[in-house]
């Protein structure tokens, strides 16, 4: 194996690294913002809210990310109403389609994780808040959500890794993410080992970074909760 031409093309991989990081980070932030209300809807006593959230989660968790991406990137072009509207500016770009697909996908998984964490909130915490005279909104903001986030952390770190790995499909719709860069190098030099092993190393690096960050976060949050 000869990795010298990989070094010559390192900027392509670095560009891929940037695209992957940007896509995944933005999708995680946006997905989380959607996931919180979604989890609350899923736990709501209102049937309509519950059903909407449940169907959304059911569809996104039951189908492959690749298909969701294809539906958005290739599929939307078939819908004349969208093609004629201002939205088309957004849907014709592979980058925005990938971001949308990743955001929707991670929001569904994150909502399920949050739902589980909210469900296991100790009854006493809520009762204590109520006896303090907090209203529903305050309990949610100060007690329920922070406590749930802490418990959701280990499962959420898995979801982050899953999204990072899942994001490799962006390379299929012409984007130059890490996988996209590797595919270009492979077709240019016909050297699959070097091209894809380099990509694998970049993903490993990112994965270990994520795992390390979450370990730090878990430690910090454990301490602030008064060491159990």
């Amino acid at each position, binding site marked *: 194996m000869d990795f010298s031409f990989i070094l010559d093309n390192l900027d392509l991989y670095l560009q891929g690294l940037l695209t992957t990081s940007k896509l995944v980070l933005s999708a995680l932030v946006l997905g989380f913002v959607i996931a919180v209300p979604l989890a609350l809807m899923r736990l709501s006593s209102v049937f309509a809210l519950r059903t909407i959230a449940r169907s959304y989660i*059911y*569809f996104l*968790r*039951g*189908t*492959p*990310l*690749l*298909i*969701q991406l*294809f*539906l958005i990137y*290739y*599929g*939307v*072009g*078939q*819908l004349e109403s969208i093609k004629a509207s201002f939205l088309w500016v957004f849907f014709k770009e592979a980058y925005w389609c990938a971001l949308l697909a990743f955001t929707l996908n991670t929001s569904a998984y994150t909502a399920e994780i949050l739902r589980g964490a909210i469900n296991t909130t100790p009854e006493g915490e809520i009762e204590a808040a109520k006896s303090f005279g907090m209203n529903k909104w305050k309990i949610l903001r100060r007690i329920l959500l922070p406590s749930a986030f802490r418990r959701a952390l280990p499962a959420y770190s898995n979801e982050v*890794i899953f999204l*990072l*790995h*899942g*994001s*490799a*499909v962006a*390379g*299929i719709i012409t984007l130059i993410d*890490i*996988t996209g860069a*590797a*595919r270009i190098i*492979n077709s240019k030099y*016909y*050297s*699959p*080992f070097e091209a*894809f*092993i380099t*990509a*694998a190393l970049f*993903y*490993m690096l990112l*994965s*270990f970074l994520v795992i390390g960050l979450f370990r730090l976060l878990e430690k910090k949050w454990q301490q602030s909760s008064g060491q159990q």
Partner: protein
Amino acid sequence: MFNYDGYLNTVLSGALITIEVALLSLALAIFFGILGALAKLSKNVVLRTVAVSYTTIIRSVPDLVLMLLIYFGGQVFVNYLALLIGYEEYIEISPFIAGVSTIGFIFGAYLTETFRGAIIAVPKGQIEAGEAIGMSRLQVLRRILFPQMMRYALPGFGNNWLVLLKTTALVSVIGLDDMVRKASLAAGATQKPFSFYLLVAIAFLAFTTISTLLLQWAEHRYSLQAKGEK
């Protein structure tokens, strides 16, 4: 929008290939998973190190990258080997074999963790009791360990199966004529990508729903048995 211009059967025949790929990969993954779990729990340092590297590396690299590596890399490797033994014809690896072996190899790493956890969960006393009445190691494995660990392994196993099922969509990228690729071709021919990808999404939804129901039933059954034995 839901007129499939006669391509419906084509896509559905691809669904069969998707199921075939999924089931064969699962069988392979179970094989690797059991091997990996036994290696991880063995007293031999070499075996343990190999198993730990296997699970760590596989779980930190995307499925798609591994698949491309094994498909394109395997091609080069096989032809290189063939050339060494004097065979000069170009050998092409079938995407079916590449797909199944990659998915099996990847999920073997995930199942290694599931099986390892399940084996540890079986009380030590059970195994000691088996040994005490003179069972051989294989007998202990078959009669004591395996039936009991399956109960603990089932939830993790189920999750892995659901993820595996969805991962099979990636084999279309290396050119296997599964449901996704057939839909892509049909979408290109009819200019109806949304209709066809929605069809594929619904098919996957059906597969995962049926799987979930079966897994729930299996978990219920196994836990009932556990109660009866007490």
